[in-house]
């Protein structure tokens, strides 16, 4: 085994197909992309965010690969390119001859870009999170928030909470008796602080991010120790105007734009956690300091007017967490992690206290997959 990790090119496609077949034959559904050009975020002139594919070649065979998503971030006031380390896949999962490959892939990524992070990962017990832990990456939980709009449908449909028979019975009783409805409403109301909006604000759907979002970015950036650059070229690449899944909400105050949110309204079908619920998600958001709650409440109201059963979001920054807390959202167990490479963690030291000044949303990672 003499492994060479290199950028994925057309010459690797056949070997990648063979790799995917070997994994499939061994019972693993994971795959490497069978094209070297990413469908989402391909390298594009003038767009500072992209995906790069790398493969590990063993002679004529491909034995694994990974993806980098480099993009500009502001790290404590300084613009730096930082990359998301995504979808590492090694034949070691099926064949222990290649057990060392996961290490080589991660080391290769760090060699190309020492300022790396991982996002999502599922749980600390997942192999990637454990690998990060072994290599002394810093792991931080990104709180999970949810808000139930249709309590009865939620209680009857939330697969994640209905796995045990006894709990299913309890949730059915709560749903049919109205106690669940009353309880959820009471909990959410108790957390909601303040009545109507203090000033006239308005939310509207926009087809793309225009120059107006530069105002929001300029006002917001100093509030964060780590935040991805969120200007119109980046946002229109992340959330392409032609993609019907993304809804871009612009929130205006009395004097102009104060923030925005990207939301999804997804009718689930047999989802492993949400079953057949209609799920609204606040995927990404930004606002001028102090206007976070306005954005959360406007986005929530917009999703609820559309008829979603439940809204969900993951957030890390303290102001956004406080905004969700005080906008009537509840916290649930989070399986969404932020992992910083040692070099990135050093720039954010002490990470334990600075983590709450990091802005991370689902939009910073894999995008809104599964939602």
């Amino acid at each position, binding site marked *: 085994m*003499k492994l060479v990790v290199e950028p994925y090119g057309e010459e690797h496609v056949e070997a990648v197909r063979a790799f995917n077949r070997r994994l499939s034959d061994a019972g693993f559904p994971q795959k490497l992309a069978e094209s070297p050009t990413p469908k989402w975020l391909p390298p594009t002139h003038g767009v500072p965010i992209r995906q790069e594919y790398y493969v590990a070649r063993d002679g004529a065979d491909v034995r694994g690969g990974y993806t980098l998503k480099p993009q500009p971030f502001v790290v404590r006031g300084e613009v730096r390119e930082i990359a998301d380390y995504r979808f590492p896949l090694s034949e070691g999962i099926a064949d*222990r001859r290649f*057990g060392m490959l*996961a290490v080589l892939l991660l080391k290769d990524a*760090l060699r190309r870009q020492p300022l790396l992070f991982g996002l999502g990962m599922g749980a600390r017990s997942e192999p990637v999170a454990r*690998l990060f832990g072994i*290599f002394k990456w810093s792991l931080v939980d990104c709180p999970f928030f949810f808000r139930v709009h249709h309590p009865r449908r939620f209680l009857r449909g939330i697969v994640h909470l209905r796995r045990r028979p006894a709990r299913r019975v309890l949730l059915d009783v709560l749903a049919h008796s109205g106690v669940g409805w009353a309880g959820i409403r009471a909990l959410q109301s108790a957390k909601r602080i303040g009545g109507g909006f203090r000033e006239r604000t308005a939310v509207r759907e926009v087809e793309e991010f225009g120059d107006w979002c530069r105002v929001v970015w300029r006002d917001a950036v100093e509030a964060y120790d780590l935040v991805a650059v969120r200007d119109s070229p980046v946002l229109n690449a992340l959330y392409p105007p032609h993609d019907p899944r993304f809804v871009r909400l612009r929130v205006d105050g009395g004097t102009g734009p104060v923030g925005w949110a990207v939301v999804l309204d997804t009718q689930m079908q047999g989802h492993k956690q949400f079953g057949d619920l209609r799920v609204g998600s606040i995927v990404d958001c930004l606002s001028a300091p102090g206007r976070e709650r306005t954005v959360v409440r406007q986005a929530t109201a917009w999703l609820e007017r559309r008829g979603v059963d439940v809204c969900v979001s993951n957030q890390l920054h303290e102001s956004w967490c406080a905004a969700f807390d005080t906008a009537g959202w509840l916290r649930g167990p989070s399986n969404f992690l932020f992992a910083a490479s040692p070099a990135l963690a050093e720039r954010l030291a002490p990470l334990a206290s600075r983590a709450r000044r990091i802005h991370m949303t689902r939009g910073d990672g894999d995008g809104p997959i599964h939602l």
Partner: protein
Amino acid sequence: MKGRERIERTVLDAIRGCLAEKGAPRPDLGPDTAVDASLGLDSLDWAAVVVQLEGELGVDPFASGVDRELRTVRDLVEVYDSACG
């Protein structure tokens, strides 16, 4: 003890330690042992071995890429020996 001998012993000790933690000690482990499926280490085990070797030998040979075959423990020792200079 010469540098290379020390590296070999450190590599063997790291692998033995990892195997012992998994409850699969290998008393016959030596330089010619293949670092393949027969050894019984998975990706996370190798990660732990590499981190331990980085700590004990003070070098990270993988940081600049490794352009050689890794078939046996001896190959791994060579990699660390080259990195130690």
